[in-house]
């Protein structure tokens, strides 16, 4: 049982404000992922929760109890570091048992708990090795094991997979999800990789420049990004963002023109969300575009990326803008071929001049 509450939490380094007032609630057993570009403050925020960075202002509470002044040793949290930070002079067994030793747990019980964690992580045969005799993935497991044996209130992960190769990263991602299920623990996870965020999280917190841009479930962020930043950050390949003008607004939707007098794309919208003549940004996910003989968009295919199950077309539009089109399966389209594109209007996003999303008339069924 562990909840985290952040109320207007701030952090300044000298005159620079790295965290600019964050409010967040992490429910018991929730898997929360902080995601954002490098320098957005996500690691700093995690370190503040851990107690490794002082909180300049605001309040942090664990299980409703203020812990701003509590040291990292007494917060009851465990952290897995990006560099693993294993103790190089200790064996795997000693590494995993260190926290229990510090807590004065008797040796027999310590050994039992270490053995149990080693079993979960399949490290039994490595218990007497030193960290330098292990591979990257094994070190990662030891770092996680060190956190498990403590039975902490909350697990904190600081980009734990970024030092692993792609295959291992995918495998560890699955294992972490399983671990979360098995341990039934609250977890806070920091990453700059939006795929990790999408696959692991119950709740994603998108951060930029020390502020929360949006909080929501992965599909909520994907289908209903609150602003341009989240729209561009979540999803791979990125959402296509095109400047447009509202040509006509009525109850059914908005007719958008990419250039004056040019072809129109109709997007369903809530009445009164925008007026004719207004400058907006049209966001179209690559999978919401498709080649169509009568499509309103016209351009030339510059590059074709064939991933087998998916084909990505990089298209230079007549107006000079570039878009990416994602097609299911292996598409025969070749580079330097002219192409017409149609957009699924219902899957389009419209952002006002300030970058905020105009409300969509219908919520995606899975985006709670």
């Amino acid at each position, binding site marked *: 049982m562990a909840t985290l509450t952040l109320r207007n939490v701030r952090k300044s380094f000298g005159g620079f404000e790295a965290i600019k007032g964050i409010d967040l609630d992490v429910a018991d057993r929730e898997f929360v992922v902080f995601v954002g570009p490098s320098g957005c403050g996500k690691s700093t925020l995690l370190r503040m929760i851990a*107690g490794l960075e002082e909180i300049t202002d605001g309040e942090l509470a664990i299980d409703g109890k203020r812990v701003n002044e509590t040291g990292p040793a007494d917060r009851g949290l*465990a952290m897995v*570091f990006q560099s693993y930070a294993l*103790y190089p002079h200790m064996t795997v067994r000693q590494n995993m048992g260190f926290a229990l030793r*510090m807590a004065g747990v008797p040796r027999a019980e310590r050994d039992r708990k270490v053995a149990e964690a080693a079993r979960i992580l399949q490290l039994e045969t490595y218990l007497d090795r030193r960290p330098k005799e292990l591979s990257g993935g094994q070190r990662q497991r030891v770092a996680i094991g060190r956190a498990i044996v403590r039975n902490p209130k909350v697990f904190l992960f600081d980009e734990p997979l970024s030092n692993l190769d792609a295959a291992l990263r995918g495998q560890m991602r699955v294992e972490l999800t399983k671990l979360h299920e098995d341990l039934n623990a609250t977890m806070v996870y920091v990453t700059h990789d939006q795929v990790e965020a999408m696959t692991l999280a119950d709740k994603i917190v998108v951060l930029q420049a020390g502020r929360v841009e949006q909080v929501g479930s992965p599909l909520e962020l994907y289908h209903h990004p609150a602003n341009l930043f989240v729209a561009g950050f979540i999803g791979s390949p990125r959402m296509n963002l095109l400047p447009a003008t509202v040509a006509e607004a009525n109850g059914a939707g908005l007719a958008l023109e990419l250039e004056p007098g040019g072809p129109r794309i109709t997007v369903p919208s809530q009445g009164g969300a925008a007026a004719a003549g207004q400058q907006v940004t049209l966001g179209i996910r690559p999978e919401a575009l498709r080649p169509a003989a009568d499509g309103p968009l016209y351009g030339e295919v510059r590059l074709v990326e064939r991933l087998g199950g998916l084909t990505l077309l990089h298209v230079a539009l007549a107006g000079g803008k570039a878009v990416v089109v994602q097609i299911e399966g292996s598409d025969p389209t070749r580079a330097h071929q002219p192409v017409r594109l149609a957009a699924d209007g219902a899957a389009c996003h419209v952002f006002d001049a300030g970058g905020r999303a105009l409300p969509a008339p219908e919520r995606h069924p899975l985006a709670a």
Partner: protein
Amino acid sequence: MRETAAQRAVVTILGWGVALLLFFPILWMFLTSFKAEVAAVAVPPQVLFEPTLESYAEVQARAEYLRFALNSIVVSLGGTLLGLAFAVPAAYSMAFHPTERTRGTLLWMLSTKMLPPVGVLVPIYLLFRTLGALDTRTGLVVIYALMNLPILVWMLFTFFKEVPKEILEAGRMDGARTGGEFWHLLLPLTLPGIASTGLLSLILCWNEAFWSLNLTSSEAAPLTAFIASFSSPQGLFFAKLSAASTMAVAPILVFGWLSQRQLVRGLTFGAVK
């Protein structure tokens, strides 16, 4: 790049040449200590001579070598331990909890080593006289610790800097407090560094002459004073002076030779990952 046999030979010869050049005065001192006084000053210098222990016997008869040696051991060890007792916490705080003044403080500490010690001789002497610390081992221990403190802090600072901050942070997350963090993590990880810092301090204390000659006379006088006592009053008796010097430098030389491995390992600690 591969070196040829000729290149290797040149490097070897050069190496031996430099080593010989550096070691020659000590070798000559060692040889002279086994000569009779007349042979010691003979022109041209004698390389082949009949060895005699006469100088050693005379040195031993005139001064209590062991008392001086004991003083040297006590003040060197004492100065080193006291120095480390202050330098380790100082370097720890500078390496792991730096403030904007840390760099400046380090540079300032080093700059104090640029001041010639004689510049503060009078105030230190007067302070020692007032405090009754003249010619006491305690006085020497304190001055040796102070004298080496900047170097000890600098060396330990660089060793501590090599330890990834995350390891100590992981320790803190695991429930270690400052004491546990130091004892279980920092100390085992930097032991080679701390040991070589201590060794260097021991050697510097042992060889220190300026303060020991000025602040001690008989009770607390270490081996440097023992050597000096053979140089001036009786004029220059080279054989006896050499015998005294050999006896004074022998322990630290043997000690240095035995700990060379550790010293080199410590000084290059972390350089090669």
